[in-house]
């Protein structure tokens, strides 16, 4: 009885103050704001996360030599076509510090990618996002908060559809 009473008191004492769940920090982890970035694409246009403010974003890190990246990219392209009108944005950051722009251009043409493909030339954004292995995909809600992370792949289209619907519903 004493143990149970102590348990109830502890639950009361460890109540969470309002607002304590909201992290104001940027970190590559669920519940935190997605680290901001500003990169250029193959056409030298600047692309940043801030450009997609108030939109849910699926942010994928990839390289042209990575087999699971190749396997999952058609699903990303298909999802992009299916959800672009709903306001969902797919961005595929290329780990260019481990790749070459020639290979990236060939890859983008081969898979007919229509979503933004920024180039992480120095690897600093992959570092901010703690990308330890490719592909890695972040699901970011319209408030800029990371709601899920999937390390590895390939991610099938069905999972992208489910995640996209959740991002658009939240």
């Amino acid at each position, binding site marked *: 009885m004493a143990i*149970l009473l102590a348990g109830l008191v502890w639950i009361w004492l460890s109540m969470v103050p309002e607002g304590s769940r909201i992290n104001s920090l940027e970190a590559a982890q669920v519940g935190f704001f997605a680290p901001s970035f500003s990169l250029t694409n193959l056409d030298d246009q600047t692309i940043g996360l801030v450009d997609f403010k108030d939109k849910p974003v699926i942010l994928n890190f990839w390289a042209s030599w990575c087999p699971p990246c190749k396997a999952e990219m058609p699903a990303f392209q298909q999802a992009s076509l299916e959800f672009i009108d709903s306001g969902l944005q797919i961005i595929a950051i290329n780990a260019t510090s481990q790749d070459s722009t020639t290979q990236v251009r060939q890859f983008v043409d081969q898979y007919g990618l229509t979503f933004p493909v920024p180039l992480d030339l120095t690897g600093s954004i992959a570092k901010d996002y703690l990308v330890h292995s490719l592909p890695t995909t972040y699901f970011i809600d319209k408030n800029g908060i990371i709601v899920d992370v999937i*390390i590895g792949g390939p991610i099938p*289209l069905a999972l992208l*559809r*489910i995640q996209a619907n959740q991002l658009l519903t939240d």
Partner: protein
Amino acid sequence: MFPVINLGLFSIPAPAFILIIGYMVGSFLLDKKAASFSMDSEIIDRALWIGTISALIGARLSFIAGSPSAFKGNFLSVLSLNPALLDPSGGLVIGITAVILVVTRKKTDYWLFLDSLTPFLGALIPAYFLSRFASGNGYGFATTQPWGIYLWGAIRHPVQLYLAFTALLLLALILVYAPIKNPLPGSTFLLFSAATSSYLLFFSAFQVPGTNTLNGIRIDQILYWVILFVTLFLYNTLIKTTPDMVHHEIN
């Protein structure tokens, strides 16, 4: 935090790797301790395997059942190796159901079965907390304590390590003392469950909660308290209804 172990060309997801190690160690301990619980290790091994496979298949089926339209025109996704297409709670329910069916069919005493399963759970649970540490999930509140770790932009309570070390301590106690003297069938499992829910209830206070709060109260703590209540109630009922045993009622 170390979500991936890079070995040459191979990238091994550390959380899954730690869980598999925990499962293997648990299976080894289970076989070693089964006889001391007067249990046939073959039955318990079979129940565990069938339970695990059913849980994996069930987790995938439960995930598909949750969003069948997502698989429209893309049915091969059903066979994807990606673990993100698993529903853990659905898998757990189906896995437990499969284990109950095996145990019932083999006419094995449920309490004895649960007792002999305790070393397995005792090894799997610390592995689970270590896997959470590896992934960086389940992190703690910011702290000024000297043992705090830098994670996600702040010095934080290493809650996953508090939980893992306590779970390892409990495993050591199981290995040394289980089965306890004058054992009542079920007592080892019930005491293990009570201890586990107690430390979870205590340490979760240091963890940054997810969205599972109700007016500031953590739902997970309520769940641990209910488990504690049920296990203590069952334990007290067990010792009251079993004659010729040394009774130590828990107050």
